[in-house]
């Protein structure tokens, strides 16, 4: 459960961290582009890039689409960016970056796409030229990166029949280009707070620092999942405690004669308690070990990422030991009530 939660957080943050931005410029009055939809003029990028302290800026779009590939429907998180400007992948594990203005894409391995594959997105076919890892949105949909031009076309280009209807209604099909956000990287020593405050002075824009964006995403998108998983984890631990308590109690009841014998030959209560607690701990640690081994074996086959940190394993070990300690109480109580005289007489 902790691994699934970590995976949720890691997935959610992956898309925010990928551009390695310092400042996110989004639509005023929104908490975009992840927690809410955001739409700003694409030329905002030029205005931001000219601001003092900004080293470089790039426009970026996000949209989720479904595309058919190899007999399956892939749900993809399409990120449009301007090659050579902030917004693209930091690391391509196989292949190359986007080399042309159109119809190439970079895909996360979890899409199932391989180098050279082609896939139809909207009205055009795209060729996979590079592969990445751990690039996905907070919903776990694997990401594909295309040029901003292709992404905008994907957003706005209509099906031919729909386009004809629009033309018949007098729509000239000319719309101002809009993007989800403009991201900026600052020069060393530049003041993030000053820049965001300056951007906010433009009434149609809002600005968030990278940390604010990450916090916002965690608070708005992941928080419910976190609480849900936390509740489920609590229920699981409670059920485990009851199961361990019943097992320990049953094991203790089966050993009453041995416990009576130990008491009769002089074993103090602390020895008896230690034996039962030790038994509970062995049970808990064995379960933990088997669980950890199992999860490490199958975690890569989960539909979403499972991230197990050593610290989480340590905390979980601590929690399980405490649960076992509490669960052994029932057995300890039964053992302490055993009369040593029951060891005598058959």
């Amino acid at each position, binding site marked *: 459960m902790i691994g699934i939660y970590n995976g949720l957080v890691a997935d959610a943050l992956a898309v925010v961290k990928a551009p390695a931005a310092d400042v996110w410029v989004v639509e005023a009055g929104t908490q975009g582009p992840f927690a809410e939809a955001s739409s700003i003029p694409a030329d905002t990028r030029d205005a931001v890039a000219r601001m003092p302290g900004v080293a470089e800026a790039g426009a970026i779009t996000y949209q989720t689409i479904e595309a058919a590939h190899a007999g399956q429907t892939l749900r993809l998180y399409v990120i449009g960016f301007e090659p050579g400007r902030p917004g693209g992948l930091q690391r391509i594990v196989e292949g190359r970056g986007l080399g042309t203005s159109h119809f190439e894409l970079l895909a996360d391995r979890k899409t199932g796409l391989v180098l050279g594959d082609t896939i139809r997105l909207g009205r055009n076919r795209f060729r996979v030229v590079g592969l990445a890892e751990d690039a996905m949105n907070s919903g776990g949909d694997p990401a594909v990166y295309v040029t901003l031009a292709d992404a905008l076309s994907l957003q706005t280009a209509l099906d031919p029949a729909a386009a004809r209807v629009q033309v018949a209604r007098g729509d000239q099909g000319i719309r101002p280009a809009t993007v989800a956000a403009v991201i900026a990287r600052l020069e060393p020593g530049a003041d993030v707070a000053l820049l965001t405050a300056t951007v906010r002075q433009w009434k149609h824009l809002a600005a968030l620092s990278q940390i604010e964006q990450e916090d916002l995403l965690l608070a708005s998108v992941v928080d419910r999942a976190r609480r849900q998983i936390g509740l489920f984890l609590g229920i699981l631990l409670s059920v485990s405690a009851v199961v361990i308590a019943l097992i320990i109690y049953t094991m203790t009841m089966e050993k009453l*004669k*041995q416990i009576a*014998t*130990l*008491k*009769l*030959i*002089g*074993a*103090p209560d602390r*020895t008896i308690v230690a034996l039962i607690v030790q038994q509970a701990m062995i049970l808990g640690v064995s379960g933990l070990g088997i669980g950890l081994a199992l999860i490490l074996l199958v975690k890569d086959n989960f539909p979403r990422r499972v991230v197990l940190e050593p610290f989480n394993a340590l905390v979980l070990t601590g929690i399980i030991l405490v649960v076992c300690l509490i669960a052994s109480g029932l057995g300890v109580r039964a053992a302490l009530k055993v*009369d*040593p*005289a029951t*060891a*005598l*007489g*058959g």
Partner: protein
Amino acid sequence: MTLGDILVNVQGVAKHYGEGETRVDALRSIDLRVHAGEVIALLGPSGSGKTTLLNVIGCILAPTAGRVELDGDAVFDGKWLRSDLRRLRLDKIGFIFQAHNLLPFLTAEENVSVVLDLAGWSTEKGRARALELLDYLEVGNRAKVKPALLSGGEAQRVAIARALANRPRIILADEPTAALDSGRAQLVMDLLRKLATEQEACIIAVTHDEKIFDRFDRLIHLRDGRLVDA
């Protein structure tokens, strides 16, 4: 036979359960002295008070009245005179059970040395003492074996070794030969007699086994909680 020190001295011990019409007198004014080197049997029909007396001497059950001295120390005089009865049992009393009661998850050697661990012996010394006792009782070759793989006679000898481990001078045995055939029962009794003599201990056994009556120095009969013949 020359009588040694008085190891068990029971004076006027009584034990009853319940009050009024439901009162049951399990022991009535029992006086009993057992000396070092003595092997005695407690006999009597079911409900006569044998096990109750054994429990009182073993400091498992508090009598209602009377005085109990073990190995020269007064342990009960209207009330327990010591709070650490388990330690008292560990130091002064060895128990042998009808069904050996060995701990199944320990080897024969560990079953013996567990008493010494409890008594505070070092692991090395405890192990050496356990092996010495198992050799003495001719089951040293079975030291690493778990109780489930021991024969009835072997298991009972391991149980005797456990009872003797911390050199107690009072051995209480509850039907020690009940689970053994006639030949092995005689062997176990001979062994207990030898131990009583060599280690200056006394052995008090509850038994119904008539075939071994001749191995005891005294047969103590109980009926309705009273000694009828000592």
